[in-house]
């Protein structure tokens, strides 16, 4: 007997998603729960299995109070993420609108913009951090007044700018190369969004006599706003799993050479919970302002 379309679709949905559901419980949720348990224990490996020795909150206390650098690095990494996030989002938005325009050589420029996605992953970035020639290049660049020093001199006498804002602007200029290189995927996502805005909307507002400026704020920006959230989440995920993330390196070192698995798990847990809270706050703040277009 052949089932009806609706019935088949219901069963089909379960069938298609079943592999992931199994994998989620076996290879994701189960290890995650174990990770939570490990963070309250010390892990001892034996030849056939592993044992846990309960330590209570000791691992967390170690991470926050005893470890000489965890707290400082933690604050630094989170701070860096929060300062870079708006820059990356703004830059990728801007770059996507640029790349969406018609001009000669567009295909080549687009291909180049996404190149960092390939080059800036994993081991390459990690080695780059301690590479002599790269450090020299950076030194030469800041010496030549790329961003930092020159900007500071320019604004030094300015009374109009509060110092924290000045620091932020200078920091932004200095991290511009990093921002550009970590925006590849985000540009791609915004570009996809720009392409999917129906042409009729632009035509309609043009007939109503909207200026390009109004067109941007009344059409482009609201239509892209759902992607803001996608990109923010991606940026946070990307930075928190990066191989050159100081905290990730510290967690790994603690695991292999330092105070052991339990302490490393506690550090990773503190880090993860903080990230989750940031994501939640960002989501709450933004989702209220997002405009969903339904056609």
């Amino acid at each position: 007997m052949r089932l009806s379309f609706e019935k088949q679709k219901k069963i089909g949905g379960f069938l298609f998603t079943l592999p992931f559901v199994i994998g989620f419980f076996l290879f994701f949720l189960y290890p995650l729960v174990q990770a939570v348990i490990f963070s309250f224990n010390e892990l001892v490996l034996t030849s056939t299995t592993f044992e846990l020795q309960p330590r209570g909150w000791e691992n967390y206390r170690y991470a926050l109070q005893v470890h000489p650098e965890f707290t400082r690095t933690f604050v630094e990494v989170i701070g860096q993420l929060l300062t870079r996030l708006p820059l990356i989002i703004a830059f990728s938005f801007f770059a996507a609108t640029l790349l969406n325009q018609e001009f000669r050589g567009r295909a080549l420029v687009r291909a180049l913009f996404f190149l960092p996605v390939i080059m800036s992953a994993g081991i390459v970035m990690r080695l780059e951090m301690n590479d002599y020639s790269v450090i020299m290049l950076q030194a030469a660049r800041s010496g030549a007044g790329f961003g930092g020093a020159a900007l500071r001199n320019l604004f030094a006498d300015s009374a109009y700018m509060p110092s924290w804002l000045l620091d932020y602007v200078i920091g932004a200029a200095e991290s511009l190369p990093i921002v550009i290189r970590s925006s590849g995927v985000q540009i791609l996502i915004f570009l996809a969004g720009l392409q999917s805005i129906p042409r009729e909307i632009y035509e309609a507002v043009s007939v109503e006599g909207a200026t390009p400026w109004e067109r941007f704020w009344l059409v482009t920006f609201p239509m892209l706003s759902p992607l803001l959230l996608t990109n923010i989440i991606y940026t946070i995920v990307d930075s928190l799993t990066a191989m050159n993330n100081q905290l990730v390196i510290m967690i790994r070192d603690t695991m292999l050479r330092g105070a052991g698995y339990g302490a490393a798990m506690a550090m990773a847990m503190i880090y993860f919970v903080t990230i989750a809270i940031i994501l939640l706050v960002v989501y709450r703040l933004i989702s209220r302002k997002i405009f969903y277009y339904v056609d």
Partner: protein
Amino acid sequence: MLMMSTAALRRLNKWTISVLRTILLIGICFVILLPLINRLSTALMPVEDLYDQSVRWIPRNPTLRNFQLVWVHMEYVKAFTNSFLLALTTSVLQVASCTLVGYGLARFRFPGNGLIFAMAIFTLIVPPQLIIVPMYLNFRFFNFMGLLGDNTINLIGTYWPFILTSMTGTGFRNGLYIFIMRQFFRGMPRELEEAAFIDGAGLFRTFFRVMLPGSIPGLIVAFLFSFVWQWNDYLYVTTFMSNQTFLPQALEAAPGRIGRMLSQTDALASSSGFLDNHFYSLINNAGMLLVILPLLILYLFMQRHFVESIERTGIVG
């Protein structure tokens, strides 16, 4: 007269914008290409050139010695083959499983649809470093949900951890591919599959015959991401397969090996301080280029499809 001048003004305006845009784009492309150029120029230098302050960008005595040394001591052919096989296996499996899941989420209304989608996103935001140790232990003492009792199997050092996680769409960043494929299938016309169904094709036939061919651009995007990230992966490879050499490990080990080799055979080199940061920098740069090169070639061939198809993926939702 007035008409003329506004037309001229508009043309001037347009011209200014295009000049500004060109300058900006060139600047950004320069920033993107700078590390690659820097790496290439350093990798081609003999160590004397790196010491020489007057040598910048263009090596005075270009040499391929760095590449030769790295090629041999990374055991490049072996490491490349391992990396290639692993990246290909995992990315094919990951794309296959994520496509199925993405299709299931995009086109079927069933209780739990939203929950499963939320689960996929959740796997994305948990850093792999957090669960890597429990995962290692589960594969080290693998007993299939307790079915094997105390007779655990050691899957570490085999391809199985990668195969199992890839098949179930729980590998590295697989949530992203599920997301991409879901968005892609959502954008495809519904009439297509309904017509196929009315013609008597079952669900899976409809999927393979009608939906899959139409989703090739999305598959390319997911495949490229998956391949590149597996290629560059360090965490999973060192945890699950530390007994074999893949490119990232080979790259990390090469400078030490070369140093040891040179200090044994070349007393002059070690005593005169050739084995310092400068020298290792040359080795590292040559090695990094060798690691990235296959990806660059892959990207060169796929970039046209890649850029076009991500636009059509319409990750918008």
